[in-house]
C-alpha cells in the first residue's frame, strides 16, 4: 500500500492509499465524532455524525476513502447544524435514568451530547412501548438503545455468529413537517432509527450464540449489558488492571476491572473484563471466565516444607502450559541444575512439530500471525476445531471474509455449523480423521508453484490426477431466423398490405457433449463436494492474500513429522502464510524455553496436573500456587508476541519462585527472569517493567515485544507419501465446547458448560442416545462414564470429549491423536 498525504483542517497527514478518512484522522489524533463505526468492521452508516467536507463535498468520514492531496474540513456551518440535529434526535425520548444506568458515564451518547453542546430539544415523537429483554447472558433494554447497530456489525463482521439484526420498532411516522425543517442527514438518520430496534436473528426468546459478549462491550450506551454485571458497580469505582487473557493461545489484551468485594470485605474482586474492542475481540471465556483465582489465606509452611522435600526426591516435573514464560524458564533452569525430566505432552507435540517444520522452512517459527489472517482474503484452516481451539482465529477468518470479501476452506472431520454460518464463500470439507496429509497434499496441488516444488512431490501429486471422459449436458443458445408474414400499413398508399419480415430469435437447446476432464483423486479421498473445484474457482477470483491456519490435530497426528514438512513446503512454495495454533495458553513459550522429555521417572511433581506431589493453582493439590490472574509475568501468544500480564488479585501463598529460591535460586520476584529469557530462542533481553501493554490510536499493538524468527539450518525437503488409512466407525474427538479451555475456565462461576460427551443434534436423532443418558465410552486405552449432552454447535457423527473437566481425565482415552475410535454404550 502506498503512502499518501491528505490535509485535515490544515494539518498534513500521512496515511495509506484506500484508508478511510476517519481512521486516518484517528491515527493522527484529529477528532471526528463517530458513533456507529467500528475499526476492523465495515462501515454501518447508521449515525451519520462523522460528516466531513472532502474537496468541497460532504462525505461520511467512516466510508470515504482518502485520496492523495485531499483537502478535508471537519467543521462547516452545515456540518455543525447536522451534528447538533443528530444528537438532538438521539436524545429524543431517551430515558433520564443515567443515575442507575449500567454504563455509568462510559456513555457515548452522554459524551457527544455534551461535546456537541445540546442544551435544548427541538424535536418530538410519540414513544412506543419498548420492553427490556433478558437474552440469557446479555440483557437488552431497547428504551436505552440508539440503534447504532454496532452490536449487529460486530456480530456479523467480527464474530461471525450473525445472531443480532434490526427488527421493526412499530413507531408512528415522523411528523411530515420535519422533513422540510430538519437538516437532511439528521432527518434520514432519524427515519431509519425510528423504524428499528435490535432483535435476535433466530426469532427465539433467548440468544443461542457462542456467547462472547462482544455486543455488550461495543454498545455505546447501556442498552446491551452483561446480565451478571447488572447494577453491581459503577464503572468509575473499578480499577483497571491491564493484563493478558490466560485461557488460550490468542493472548488477547484485556483489563481486569477490580474493586473491593463489599463494604464488609475489603479484599479485591474482579467485577468484569473489558477490552479495546476496536483492536481486539474477546471470546466468552476471556470475557466471563475471570474468577479462576486460587484464594489462599496464608502461607502454608508445612505444605511448603513437604514440597521442598518432594523436589529433592523427585526426578520428573510434569506440567501444563498454563504457566508464564518466567516459570517455564525457572523449570528449565531447575532441569539444568538438578537434572529433572520435564514432561508436558501437549507442548512437546507442538515443539516436535515446530522443529520438523524448521528443518524445511529454515525458520524456527511459522511466518505469519492472526493479524495477517485478518488482512488476507483467502484463508484455509486445517486440523483445528477453530471456534473452540482459538476463537480469535475464527474471528480472523470471519473478518477476512466479511470485510475483505474473502473466501476460505475449512478442512475438519467435525463439521461446524458456526463456520458454515459465516457465509457461502467458506467451503467446508469434512474429511475422515487421519487424512490431514491428503489435505496438505491437496493444498500443494492447488496452490503451490509446481515449477519450484521438489520434483518428487510434483510427481507424487500428479499420480492422483487422471483424465476422464465424461458426458456433459450443455445448454447452447442458437440463433434461429424465420421469415414471417405480417400485415403492415403502407404509408404511401394508406392501405394495409402483407409483407415478409425476417425475424431472428435465440432458442435454448440442450446438447450432449463429450469432454475430457481432469480428475483429482485427492478430492475423492477427502470426500469433497462434487462442486468443489467449480466453487473454488469462483471463490478464488480477485484473491491476493492467502493465509493457512493449522491446528493441534496435526501436532498429535501419528505422522506429525511429515505433516510439519508439508506445511513448510506449502509456506515455501505457495502464496500461503502459515499460522499455527499453539494447543494451550503458553505452549509456544514452553516449546521455546523448555527441553521436554517423553516419559516420567519414578517420582513426579505435577504443576497444575496430577502427580505424586501436586502443585496446583486450581486449589486441589498438595501446595497451592497462584492462578494466572494473580501472577505477573509474560505469555507467548499465537501472534509470536511476548505479552506482559499483571496480577489482578492478591495472592498470599507460596509460588514457584519461592520453591526455586529454597532450592538455591535467587530472585525476589519471578519477573526478574523476564530479561533473562534466551535471546538465541528469539526472546529479547527486556525488563518486565519496561514492557508496554496497550494499543495506540491507529491500532498499533504496543504490547510486550515480538519474538524474533530465528533462521536455522535446513535439511532436505523430502516428504513421505501418505497411507490411505482413516478412522471410521464410532469416533470421539478431544475438543472442548466454546468458552471452555482448561480446568481454569471450568472453575469460573459464569462459564457453566456441563461436562460430558457432546453429540450433534442430528447424531442424537439418528442414534438411540438421548440428552442426559449416562454412557460408557471405551477405547483401547480405557473407559469413562459420562453424560450425553446435545450440542447444536457441532454437526456430524463424531462425539466430542472435553478436556476442561479434570475429573473426566478424557486424555487418557486417546493415544496422542485427537481422534480415536471408541465404543459408546448406554449404562
Amino acid at each position, binding site marked *: 500500500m502506498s503512502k499518501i498525504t491528505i490535509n485535515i483542517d490544515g494539518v498534513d497527514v500521512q496515511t495509506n492509499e484506500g484508508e478511510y478518512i476517519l481512521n486516518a484522522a484517528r491515527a493522527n489524533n484529529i477528532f471526528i465524532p463517530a458513533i456507529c463505526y467500528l475499526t476492523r468492521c465495515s462501515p454501518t452508516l447508521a449515525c451519520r455524525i462523522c460528516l466531513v467536507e472532502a474537496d468541497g463535498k460532504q462525505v461520511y468520514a467512516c466510508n470515504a476513502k482518502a485520496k492523495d492531496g485531499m483537502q478535508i474540513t471537519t467543521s462547516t456551518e452545515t456540518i455543525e447544524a447536522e451534528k447538533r440535529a443528530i444528537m438532538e434526535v438521539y436524545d429524543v425520548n431517551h430515558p433520564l435514568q443515567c443515575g442507575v444506568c449500567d454504563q455509568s458515564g462510559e456513555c457515548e451518547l452522554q459524551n457527544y451530547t455534551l461535546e456537541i453542546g445540546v442544551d435544548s430539544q427541538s424535536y418530538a415523537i*410519540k414513544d412506543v412501548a419498548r420492553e427490556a429483554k433478558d437474552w440469557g447472558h446479555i440483557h437488552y433494554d431497547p428504551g436505552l438503545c440508539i440503534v447504532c447497530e454496532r452490536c449487529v456489525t460486530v456480530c456479523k463482521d467480527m464474530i461471525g455468529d450473525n445472531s443480532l439484526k434490526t427488527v421493526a420498532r412499530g413507531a408512528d411516522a415522523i*411528523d411530515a413537517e420535519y422533513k422540510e425543517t430538519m437538516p437532511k442527514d439528521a432527518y434520514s438518520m432519524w427515519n431509519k432509527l425510528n423504524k428499528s430496534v435490535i432483535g435476535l436473528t433466530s426469532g427465539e426468546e433467548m440468544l443461542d450464540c457462542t456467547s462472547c459478549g462482544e455486543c455488550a462491550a461495543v454498545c455505546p450506551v447501556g442498552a446491551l449489558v452483561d446480565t451478571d454485571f447488572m447494577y453491581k458497580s459503577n464503572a468509575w469505582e473499578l480499577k483497571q488492571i491491564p493484563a493478558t487473557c490466560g485461557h488460550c493461545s490468542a493472548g488477547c489484551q484485556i483489563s481486569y476491572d477490580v474493586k473491593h468485594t463489599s463494604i464488609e470485605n475489603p479484599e479485591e474482586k474482579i467485577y468484569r473484563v473489558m477490552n479495546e474492542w476496536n483492536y481486539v475481540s474477546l471470546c466468552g471465556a476471556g470475557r466471563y471466565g475471570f474468577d479462576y483465582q486460587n484464594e489462599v489465606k496464608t502461607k502454608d509452611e508445612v505444605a511448603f516444607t513437604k514440597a521442598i522435600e518432594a523436589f529433592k526426591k523427585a526426578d520428573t516435573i510434569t506440567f501444563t502450559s498454563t504457566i508464564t514464560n518466567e516459570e517455564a524458564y525457572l523449570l528449565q533452569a531447575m532441569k539444568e541444575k538438578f537434572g529433572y525430566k520435564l514432561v508436558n505432552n501437549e507442548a512437546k507435540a507442538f515443539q516436535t512439530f515446530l522443529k520438523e517444520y524448521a528443518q524445511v522452512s529454515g525458520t524456527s517459527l511459522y511466518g505469519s500471525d492472526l493479524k495477517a489472517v485478518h488482512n488476507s482474503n483467502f484463508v484455509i484452516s486445517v486440523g483445528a476445531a477453530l471456534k473452540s481451539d482459538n476463537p480469535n482465529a475464527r474471528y480472523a477468518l470471519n473478518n477476512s471474509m466479511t470485510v475483505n470479501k474473502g473466501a476460505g476452506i475449512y478442512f475438519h472431520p467435525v463439521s461446524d455449523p458456526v463456520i458454515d454460518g459465516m457465509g457461502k464463500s467458506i467451503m467446508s470439507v469434512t474429511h475422515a480423521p487421519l487424512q490431514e496429509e491428503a489435505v496438505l497434499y491437496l493444498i500443494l496441488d492447488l496452490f503451490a508453484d509446481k515449477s519450484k516444488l521438489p520434483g518428487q512431490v510434483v510427481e507424487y501429486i500428479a499420480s492422483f490426477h487422471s483424465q476422464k471422459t465424461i458426458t456433459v449436458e450443455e445448454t447452447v443458445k442458437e440463433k434461429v431466423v424465420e421469415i414471417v408474414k405480417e400485415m403492415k400499413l403502407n404509408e404511401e398508399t394508406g392501405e394495409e398490405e402483407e409483407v415478409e419480415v425476417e425475424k431472428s430469435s435465440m432458442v435454448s437447446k440442450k446438447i450432449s457433449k463429450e469432454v475430457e476432464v481432469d480428475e483429482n483423486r485427492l478430492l475423492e479421498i477427502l470426500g469433497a463436494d462434487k462442486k468443489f473445484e467449480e466453487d473454488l474457482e469462483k471463490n478464488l477470483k480477485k484473491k491476493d492474500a492467502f493465509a493457512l491456519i493449522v491446528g493441534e490435530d496435526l501436532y498429535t497426528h501419528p505422522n506429525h513429522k511429515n505433516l510439519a514438512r508439508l506445511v513448510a513446503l506449502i509456506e515455501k512454495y505457495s502464496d500461503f502464510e502459515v499460522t499455527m495454533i499453539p494447543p494451550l495458553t503458553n505452549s509456544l513459550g514452553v516449546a521455546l524455553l523448555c527441553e521436554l522429555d517423553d516419559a516420567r521417572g519414578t517420582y513426579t511433581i505435577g504443576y497444575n496436573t496430577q502427580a505424586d506431589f501436586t502443585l496446583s493453582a486450581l486449589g486441589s493439590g498438595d501446595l497451592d500456587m497462584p492462578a494466572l490472574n494473580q501472577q505477573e509475568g509474560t505469555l507467548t501468544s499465537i501472534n509470536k508476541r511476548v505479552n506482559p500480564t499483571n496480577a489482578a488479585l492478591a495472592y498470599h501463598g507460596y509460588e514457584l519462585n519461592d520453591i526455586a529460591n529454597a532450592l538455591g535460586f535467587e530472585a525476589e520476584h519471578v519477573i526478574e527472569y523476564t530479561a533473562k529469557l534466551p535471546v538465541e530462542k528469539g526472546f529479547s533481553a527486556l525488563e518486565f517493567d519496561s514492557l508496554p501493554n496497550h494499543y495506540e490510536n491507529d491500532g498499533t499493538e504496543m504490547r510486550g515485544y515480538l519474538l524474533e524468527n530465528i533462521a536455522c539450518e535446513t535439511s532436505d525437503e523430502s516428504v513421505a507419501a501418505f497411507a490411505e488409512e482413516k478412522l471410521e466407525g464410532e469416533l470421539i474427538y478431544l475438543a472442548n465446547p466454546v468458552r471452555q479451555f482448561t480446568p481454569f475456565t471450568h472453575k469460573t462461576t459464569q462459564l457453566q458448560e456441563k461436562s460430558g460427551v457432546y453429540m450433534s443434534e442430528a447424531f442424537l436423532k439418528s442414534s438411540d442416545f438421548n440428552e442426559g443418558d449416562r454412557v460408557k465410552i471405551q477405547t483401547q486405552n480405557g473407559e469413562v462414564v459420562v453424560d450425553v449432552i446435545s450440542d447444536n454447535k457441532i454437526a456430524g457423527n463424531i462425539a466430542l470429549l472435553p478436556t476442561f473437566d479434570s475429573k473426566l481425565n478424557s486424555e487418557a482415552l486417546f493415544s496422542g491423536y485427537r481422534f480415536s475410535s471408541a465404543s459408546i454404550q448406554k449404562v
Partner: protein
Amino acid sequence: MNNEQFNDRNVSENGYYLVDIQDYPTTGWDKFTRVVRRTLRGELFVGLWVVLREMIRFDIHTVKYPEEKMPIGPRYRAVHEMKRLWESDAERCIGCGLCEKICISNCIRMDTKIDANSRKEVTEYSINLGRCIFCGYCAEVCPELAITHGGEYENASDQREHFILYEDMLTPLDKMKAGTQLEFEGFGAITPHEDERVKKTPLAY
C-alpha cells in the same frame, strides 16, 4: 476592595514567622521561681471576680445546655439523613453512587445489586463518620435530594459508627405519616427560581 491579595493561596512561600517564646528554664532554681510566679499571679481571681459579679447582677446569657439548646440553622451540616419520597414513602436513594464518588474524605461506600423487579437496589450503605469532614458535597451532588445533612450535632457516643446505620439515617415512617419530614435547605437543595431556568422539552402527546 482589591481581592488580589487573597488569590495567592500559596502561603508556604513567605507565610512563616517565628513565635516569640521565652527560653525554657534550665536550672532547678529557675524552674522553682517559674512555678511560684505562675501560682501566685492574681489572674485566677480576675476570672473568678467576673463570674461572681455577673452572678450578683442576674444578667446571665449562658445557654443552659443540655436543658436548653440553641436553634440550628436550616443549612447546618451535621450527621447525614436519608429522605423518603413524599408521594410513596419509598426511599429516595436510587443507588447512583455519586456521593461515593464525590466524597473527598472517601468515607462513603455502597453495595448495590439488581432486585426482583429489575431495579437497582442498595443493599448496604455506609458512611465512616470517623473520616467524614461534613463538607456537604454528598448532599450537593445527590440528584434525588436523598442524602442530606441533618441538625443532629450531638454525636457523643462510645462509637461514632453508632450514627451511621442506614436505618437510623432514614426518615422514620411514622414521621412520614405525620408529614413532618423536613426538607434540607443547604447544599444541593433546589434553588429559588429553578423553574424559570429550565427549558421545556417538546412533547408529542
